[in-house]
């Protein structure tokens, strides 16, 4: 809001200089035509541009969890554990329908083989937001481009085509954005059913609808919320929320995490010539 007031005052000053009559902030708004108000609004929207990153463990499990082993602890030791974390789900737990909860548990039991992200598949929305890699927002009036370091993935949030629908489903879905006061609200539809919400088997179906809300709460923090609705899987819509932190270091930038070369080991290792089972990091066969 502070930014809005400053910009409104600046607009008044400019108008004063240009039109040679005085105006208060209220006078300016009252006297402006609706067209000029639209333009004024266009110029005072918060600018979300920058490099942001979630600092939590939601990508491992949206719900509260204690630290646990991963299969790679035999190779990586303490580096291969899953860190503990508090739930980012409003009310703590995801409201699964009974059959869907069984499916989640089935997923969880074999997650290292089933989690699409382990294979370097596109994480979808909202999971891309809270993966432990940064994202970069480029904000323009007509579209907002969100680039993710993980997989060099991206998506476009269309700001100028309300009411349209995606021609085909996709991994990232179809994102339509609008401003509600100082919040960017994004409706994401038409995501393929192949993505998960985290590495703990939490999942959705083909009728997933996600409403994201990005609110700049100060210069370096976005409050991120996502309301997740899929009547085939959940008993009611439910919400996650977390802050996103601006990467403020001078040399902050999005690098590449083109994970294909890592996913290949999971997907194709057994198809390599002379494959003789998983190896330790030094290439030797493990006992």
């Amino acid at each position, binding site marked *: 809001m502070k930014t809005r007031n400053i910009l409104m005052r600046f607009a008044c000053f400019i108008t004063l200089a240009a039109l040679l009559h005085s105006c208060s902030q209220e006078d300016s708004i009252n006297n402006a035509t609706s067209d000029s108000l639209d333009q004024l609004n266009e*110029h005072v929207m918060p600018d979300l541009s920058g490099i942001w990153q979630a600092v939590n463990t939601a990508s491992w499990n949206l719900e509260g969890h204690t630290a646990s082993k991963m299969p790679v602890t035999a190779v990586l030791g303490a580096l291969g554990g899953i860190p503990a974390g508090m739930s980012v789900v409003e009310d703590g737990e995801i409201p699964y329908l009974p059959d869907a909860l069984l499916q989640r548990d089935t997923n969880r039991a074999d997650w290292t083989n089933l989690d699409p992200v382990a294979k370097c598949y596109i994480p979808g929305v909202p999971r891309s937001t809270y993966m432990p890699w940064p994202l970069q927002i480029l904000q323009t009036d007509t*579209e907002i481009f969100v680039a993710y370091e993980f997989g060099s993935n991206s998506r*476009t949030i269309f700001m100028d085509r309300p009411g349209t629908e995606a021609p085909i489903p996709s991994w990232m879905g179809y994102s339509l954005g609008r401003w509600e006061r100082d919040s960017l609200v994004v409706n994401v539809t038409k995501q393929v059913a192949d993505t998960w919400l985290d590495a703990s088997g939490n999942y959705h179906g083909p009728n997933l609808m996600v409403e994201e809300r990005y609110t700049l709460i100060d210069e370096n923090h976005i409050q991120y919320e996502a309301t997740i609705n899929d009547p085939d899987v959940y008993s009611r819509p439910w919400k996650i929320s977390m802050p996103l932190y601006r990467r403020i270091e001078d040399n902050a*930038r999005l690098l*590449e995490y083109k994970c294909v070369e890592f996913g290949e080991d999971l997907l194709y290792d057994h198809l390599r010539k002379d494959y003789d089972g998983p190896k330790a990091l030094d290439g030797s066969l493990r006992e």
Partner: protein
Amino acid sequence: MKRTTSFLFVLGSTFLIAPSYGDVPVTKWGKPSLQGNWDFRTVTPFQRPASFADKEFLTEGEIEEFEAAIIAGREARAVANFDGEYDQRDLDVGYNQFYLDQGTTMTTTMRTSQLIYPTDGRMPAMTQRGRETAAYFRALQSRSPEGPEDRNLYDRCILGFNAGPPMRSGAYNNIMKLVQTESHVAIMVEMVNDHRIIPTNMSGSNLPDDMRLWKGDSRGYWDGDTFVVDTKNLTHLSRFSGTGQNMVLTERFTRLDENRLEYMWTVDDPEMFEDKFTAVVEMQLTDDDVFEYACHEANYAMPLMLSGARKQEASGEDDDTWLPSWSR
């Protein structure tokens, strides 16, 4: 936003007048707008065909004739009866004519080739090291693949065959999204659904020499009305037409008018080539969307190739057909 629109109302038009660019849309901060989805399909040959010899430009009539010949060739190919036993050409390219989307028109430069330097429109000679390196990769990709790393980066869905950098019209998905803010430009090519984020003011320092990226380290600046992007720090596998990891790429983006974006690039790689080479095309603004080309997610070819290779090994078969016939 067009120059003629009234966004300056808010900023006070009496004392903030930006220079005129004619039909070129301009950003709020006074630079030519490059934003949009850009179609870079073209049937203009990358290198000048021998039939054009020293001819650099074509007349409108010659262009119509050239385009008609291309279309006629495709139509003939589409209805040709291929003999599977003796002629694999329609199969081992991976796609038949139905799936190809290479455009039907020459680029509006009216040139006989995309390459404009060397002046004969042909690629410069490779150095000895360039030839040796090319031979190594050719041998690697000719053999029965021992693992995914034996295949090229396009088969592995790590880079797009037409996305470079630099971008060059290929078999399909010749479309680029460019998103522009005052501080950054994002370039996302449909093939293969990845991006470059380019600072517009050369801000920050270049990556150290030992940090190598598949698409390189790109930094941009404005040279008058042209956005210039310098890219280096590529990997030794990011080979563009035989370049190596020390290639320095300079791309120049110039908005010519409402619908055209001139894209000129120069590769400088004295380790692999005896001379620089430069190409230019004019991309066309399009209303088409850039779709999500989820290449790796649907890469059925890789496990099938590896499975096939393992089966051949098990049965003691040799196979020298891992390169398509057109590249042997």
